[in-house]
């Protein structure tokens, strides 16, 4: 279990260019600990780009992005230890079992006892019966549960959720809501990108609206 590594993430004048396309055009954002921020906007507004920057899978063309005192460019590896990302794609290896996948990610994140951590997360999400089958055989809901365990493997300080409710049934969405609330109560910074108004209504504490790469409401 890792303690919270920072209590605030903030970006100033964030610009992201893909060739000549300006995905983000000078965005100022801040995300605080113990808060769920819903990032909204139409397709092409820059939501996914912002999430890529926060996940450190893309670098800003211009601007400053800081995770507490850590700088996104200079301290990327140190920051990654404290990130959890849940997206529509599970990021799991289909030919490994769910348990093997979560153990692998626990080891990659330097968790001291990957086996025990995977077992604890499987208990938390009720992944007993199917967790030892290959991921390829999972239903969407089962996949989501294991992907949640993967995202939370290192008790992330910053939890990024990218359209996490896509394809989930009612029970799956309810479980997702519970997890998001639990993470917020733990003190994590939660950023949720979704078109699902019902989900954002249930868990969102604050909303940031993007349009054409700019913040139009915060």
């Amino acid at each position: 279990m890792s303690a919270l590594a920072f209590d605030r993430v903030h970006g100033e004048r964030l610009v992201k260019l893909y060739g000549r396309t300006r995905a983000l055009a000078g965005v100022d954002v801040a995300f605080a600990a113990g808060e769920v921020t819903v990032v909204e906007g139409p397709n092409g507004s820059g939501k996914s780009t912002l999430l890529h920057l926060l996940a450190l899978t893309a670098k800003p063309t211009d601007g400053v992005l800081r995770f507490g005192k850590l700088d996104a460019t200079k301290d990327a590896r140190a920051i990654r230890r404290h990130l959890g990302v849940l997206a529509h794609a599970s990021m799991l290896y289909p030919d490994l079992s769910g348990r093997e996948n979560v153990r692998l990610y626990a080891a990659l994140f330097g968790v001291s006892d990957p086996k025990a951590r995977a077992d604890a997360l499987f208990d938390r999400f009720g992944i007993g019966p199917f967790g030892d089958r290959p991921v390829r055989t999972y239903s969407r809901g089962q996949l989501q549960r294991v992907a949640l365990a993967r995202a939370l493997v290192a008790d992330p300080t910053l939890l990024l959720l990218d359209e996490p409710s896509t394809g989930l049934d009612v029970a799956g969405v309810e479980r997702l809501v519970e997890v998001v609330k639990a993470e917020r109560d733990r003190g994590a910074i939660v950023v949720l990108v979704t078109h699902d108004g019902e989900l954002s209504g249930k868990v969102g504490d604050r909303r940031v609206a993007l349009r054409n790469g700019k913040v139009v409401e915060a």
Partner: protein
Amino acid sequence: MKELWRGARLVAAKDLRIEARTKEITVTTAFFAVLVVVLSSLAFYLDRNTAKSIAPGVLWVAVVFAGITSVTRSWGREREEDALRGLLLSPIPRASIYFGKLFGNLVFLLAVEVVLVPLVALLFHLELEPLLPTSVLLLLGSFGFVSAGTLFGALSVQTRARDLVLSIVVFPLVTPALLGGVVATRELFAGAPLSEVLGWVQILAAFDLVFLGAGYLLFDALLSD
């Protein structure tokens, strides 16, 4: 450095575990390579003397096709369910992913070569003596090929024309090393001692070091947006 090797070990172990379970890469590439050797022996074998000239080309062609198939499929596994993104989100050094994938791909290719070399020797009626030094050449050549293939194979995960990109980039880059491998193998099959092809061995080793260094330095940049 400790983190680098720890991450590489985890990535390689993951690839080997998946392959041990599915046998998808080794079996498909082995069948393909065996088919190349068998068809070539039927089409080109005339007598023992011509076989000595033909066998090196057949052997290396089979290795190259097995290698490119293996690398493509190995990176294809990272594409499914966006698994590569999961690795990129983890705090291990990016070069760990490169070294881990490289090791896995090398093991897959060497496993195929263990079948391939005796088969070529059998079908082309080769002497057994040159096979040991040939194995040294194959090891060096395979290492270089897999180093380059693994580096640029990462590009194939992020592009739609993935097989095309991999072939267009990798084949021209590895051609000098392959030429060295084929010529040195031909000399060995013709009866030359290893000391006579030492120059080619050094070229192959230098090629390996260059691509290993390039992989270490460039892998992160290749995966950046």
